[in-house]
């Protein structure tokens, strides 16, 4: 049982890494990775929000939206299939959760808010978050804890990616890059090389 969770966790961090395998959350990944400090802040915010929204959306999908999910209300609802609403529901859940998390963090931990605060609103439109929920819908998890492990693992994978690229970009500021490649171009190529590195994890199974 535990082994299965561990396997899912490692898989979602390294093999199905959000950035390197699916290119999710690339926009904020490129925009916020100029300094390591910001990268770490954004990374933690993504872990946080993914860990909350994926299981939440799993529950909503499983008990409200999927085919025949409404059977618990009464037999006459058993044939309803509301899965076409999932996109709108997921994005609504994410947007409101982000708002809620922002308010809670602001109230209880001003220090954390100071470092995460500006990143939280950005997260509502980060494709990694919505992508996590949409992949959850495809993967057909057997329980809410599996969904939570998947959300957390994907968040950690994203965190590793942004911290890695931010550290490299801080160092690369001192090297002499051909002028047209500076900034965005070299970041793309480095990300490509990092993705090749992450490909070596393919096939690992615990």
């Amino acid at each position, binding site marked *: 049982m535990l082994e299965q969770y561990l396997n899912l966790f490692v898989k979602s961090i390294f093999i199905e890494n959000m950035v390197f395998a699916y290119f999710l959350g690339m926009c904020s990944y490129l925009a916020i990775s100029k300094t390591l400090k910001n990268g770490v802040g954004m990374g933690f915010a993504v872990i946080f929000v993914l860990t909350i929204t994926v299981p939440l959306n799993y529950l909503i999908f499983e008990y409200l939206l999927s085919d025949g999910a409404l059977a618990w209300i009464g037999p006459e609802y058993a044939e309803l299939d509301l899965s076409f609403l999932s996109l709108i529901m997921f994005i609504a859940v994410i*947007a409101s959760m982000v708002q809620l998390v922002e308010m809670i963090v602001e109230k209880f931990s001003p220090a954390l808010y100071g470092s995460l605060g500006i990143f939280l609103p950005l997260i509502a439109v980060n494709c990694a978050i919505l992508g996590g929920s949409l992949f959850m819908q495809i993967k057909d998890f057997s329980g809410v804890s599996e969904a939570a492990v998947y959300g957390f693992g994907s968040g950690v994978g994203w965190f590793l990616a942004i911290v890695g690229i931010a550290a490299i970009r801080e160092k690369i500021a001192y090297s002499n890059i051909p002028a047209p490649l500076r900034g965005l171009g070299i970041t793309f190529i480095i990300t490509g090389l990092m993705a090749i590195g992450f490909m070596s994890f393919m096939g690992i199974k615990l």
Partner: protein
Amino acid sequence: MDKKNTKKPSFLFIGRSDEPILSKKNRKLLTDPLDDNNPITVQVLGICSALAITVQLKPAVVMTMSVIFVMACSNVIISVLRNLIPNRIRIIVFLVVISSLVALVDQFLKAYAYDVSKELSIFIGLIVTNCIVMGRLEAFALGNGVWKSFLDGIGNAIGYGIILIIVAFFRELFGAGTLWGIQVIPDFIYEEYGYVNNGFMLLSPMALITVGLIIWIQRSRNRTLIEEN
């Protein structure tokens, strides 16, 4: 003749200020995003989906068409409503408009192009959080008229599509030797010259590197875009 009478009737605020429908300024809205202000290589918007679906030409073209539809419609809708949307909840209004349009596209593709929609899997859904749509709504449609917003939407979606199609063209050509699923590299090249498809082009890292190279080429042509590191 009295000048007032020659004024063209305005439809949906188009040409209200006696501007021809495709004036120089409006044409610039359409052509600027194709190169100088390209959403992917210059504005850095909408990269996620651009990379993931460029393994083959066909999904890239379908994706481009979906984005053109979503951007044109959402820009028009937001621009019509721009004076009614309270500033504080604008993001949620954007999300509602975009996600309903995307759900429409998603269902349409599922009904009429099921195999392509399977291939695009979650990436049609991810148009909702595609920063191009959001970014243009925020930066343009919220402050400009309907016709201009429509042109801006179309222009940016095409600018996005061009990069998508270029990347997909090279990846499919070198990776699989086909274009649009049809073999273009003739058999004898494989047999007589020992040419082998570069399967690495089909993997995700090469998408990133291809876009990096496109940026390199574009910026060495157009030196004003070069960034200070």
